[in-house]
């Protein structure tokens, strides 16, 4: 068994936390795990890609191109930027929300929202684009976008860990006062995930 997940987002969106909880859920189920990040220079606002590998007989942490079973995107354009990691027929779980970089406001580049969406949908049939920003706000904070999307992921069939274990690891990883909010975010994500699952 080997499950490769690539997480794409913007610094400050909680992609590192997402990679760690997925790895810990994998460990709880008795698997070997590896995670790593590629982070640019800045503390915030830069592109961040995290790699998570769960399974047996693992080597390095970097997921090779076209080998990710799941592309987990916290931000729309960043999801597209990591598309080369997705394996043919892989699953995309992504936030349709945007973090528009300063370069766009300055006219140095464009944010082509619709073409980016289309490129995700063209790459694989198994795309779950979720308004995670809105769901996170409903749960109580925009900071729970990562947990909403983990909830969506938890509805997938055939994961190498139990959904409850994933939720428990998440709740142990967040500050005490944010536990209820994160549980709510996870549940909202899970419900959306189930509807995607049913549609198939």
């Amino acid at each position: 068994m080997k499950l490769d997940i690539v997480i794409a987002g913007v610094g400050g969106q909680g992609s590192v936390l997402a990679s760690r909880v997925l790895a810990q859920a994998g460990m709880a189920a008795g698997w070997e795990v590896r995670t790593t990040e590629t982070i640019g220079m800045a503390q915030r606002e830069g592109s961040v890609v995290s790699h998570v590998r769960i399974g047996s007989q693992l080597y390095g942490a970097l997921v090779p191109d076209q080998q990710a079973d799941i592309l987990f995107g916290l931000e729309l354009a960043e999801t597209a930027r990591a598309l080369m990691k997705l394996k043919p027929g892989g699953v995309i779980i992504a936030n349709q929300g945007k973090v528009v970089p300063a370069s766009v406001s300055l006219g140095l580049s464009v944010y082509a929202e619709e073409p980016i969406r289309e490129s995700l949908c063209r790459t694989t049939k198994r795309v779950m684009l979720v308004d995670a920003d809105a769901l996170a706000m409903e749960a109580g904070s925009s900071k729970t976008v990562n947990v909403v999307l983990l909830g969506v992921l938890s509805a997938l069939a055939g994961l190498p860990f139990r959904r409850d274990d994933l939720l428990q690891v998440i709740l142990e990883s967040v500050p005490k006062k944010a536990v209820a909010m994160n549980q709510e975010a996870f549940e909202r994500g899970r419900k959306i995930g189930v509807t995607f699952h049913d549609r198939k």
Partner: protein
Amino acid sequence: MEKRLLMGNEAIAWGAVEAGVAVAAAYPGTPSSEVVETLAHLAPEYGFHAEWSVNEKVALEVASGAAYTGARALAAMKQVGLNVAADPLMSLAYIGIKGGLVLVVADDPGPHSSQTEQDTRKFAAFAKLPVFDPSSPQEAKEMVKAAFVLSEEFHLPVILRPTTRTAHMAQDVAMETANLPTRDYRFEKDPKWVIFPSLSYKKHILLNQAQKDLAEKFSHSPFNHLVLNPESSEGIVASGVSYNYVMEACETLSIHPSILKIGTPYPLPSQPVLDLFAHCARILVVEEQEPVVEDQLIQMAWKEEAKIEVSGKQDGRVPREGELNVDKVIAIIKAFLRQREPKDLAQPPHARVQSILGTMETTEAASAVEAAHEHSFELPPLPLRTPVLCAGCPHRASFYAFKEVGRRQDAVFTGDIGCYTLGTIPPLDMLDTCLCMGAGVTQAIGMSKVEPGRKHVAFIGDSTFFHSGIPGMINAVYNQADITIVILDNRTTAMTGHQPHPGLERTATGPNPKPIDIQGIVKACGVEFVREVDPYDLKAMKEAAREAMAYKGTAVVIAKRECVALVKPEVKYVVDPKTCTGCELCLKKLGCPAMAKDKTLVVIQDNCSGCGVCAQVCPQNAVREVSLR
């Protein structure tokens, strides 16, 4: 056995705790910072000393002092930090130590966040010191413990060199019992601790002899292992993290060459290499950065008169620049397999692979991988997401003020290492130079001596100031340099994860009752023009910039405002759409990531931290403060 998810640097820290470390010292630097970050966290519980030293030279000297007494000590730094610590390291190799001294130096092939891709294994060979090259966090933890033992056996400092991909990889790591330092350490007086030239000569002979003994010792190290395939005449040698890529690549290609994993690249263990020579006609060496293993292997082949074809960096097969990964290593191995002796090439490809590797499906697997990699995605243009200064970063305000004042004066703005290096990015376009820690100040001095009519302004962060900025400032005063030094005092070492420094009220492990006042140092060094300003007050900041740049002689402006990542905003700002004329001056001048264009007007997004600089830039007074309470 309990397993924990540990990052490589955390695993190294735990290895030190399991080895009974008594002193740990470091100056932060990506990708090494988490080693002492973790140790500082564990120090109170396990009863050892952990510190953030002011620079890497100091860190290594502090650790070596402890090791002189018989205690186990660790120093950690990034690869360019070792350049700063090179002076004590080179002499320590001669003088030696008593208690185990492990020097953790994290290399950064890529580079992801460094000025150079220098290879610390090469530095180890230059210093004639043994080096371990871990392929995973688990192995890094075991190597730290082995390094302490080796250090005490040979009385030499031992280097552990993780690369970014080991230092920042997290893995399920098996935990063992921690050992507390014993505390009965004592420095025994002896002339052997005083490095006179006559002693150096004798010690050099011993150090040279140790090279052979270390190579012999490493021949039996569990960190080097050879898996021979008698059916194959080809072998792959991989050092450190490259081993992971080689194993995964061989799995993907379904090939089974003999594989020698090297965990101690210098001195190269002789026995497993000779065993490999005995079985192989062709050897591929896969390692990141410099051909450290490859060059030693070629020397060994020449000495042994072994008829071996060696491929790697010297024949251009493996790149010297950048980081390796599975995809690159697959391509490297495939090219290596394709290029065989002419007599082999005469055979059909299928038979050729079979005869040499003793396995099949190679060609099919290889072509499948190739086909997969040829597939290209049609991506729409994606927005540029270069790293930028955070919304509300005080450095942005400092840069803006100096830009406004200096733009008509053709001033030169020299820079330094830290978050503020990002000031070079549009629209600020400040910082005309960035070389290494402390060089902003000193290079400005040099320029000022040959461009007398021009203004030279050097930007340096608070932590960098303590690291190596103070000697430069003293040099400016002593040599009467007409420069302005701007100390961007954001009250932390922000870029590497907010470590404290001597100017703050805390140390690595507790309170600092006597924070050192930067302004006091500046004055004590003889600087007569000193202004301390809050950069969020643009008017005052511009005034200070104007006065400092007009001043003849060394002037210092301290732009003091806490890093925005450390404070919770109390206010935020909004653009009044009725007053905003859409001139976009705020956007174009500041490039703040909280500001965005919404059709014709500017809007301020949720990530606004309430610095209020845009409100001071707006010519229409269209930006208003809103309380968040």
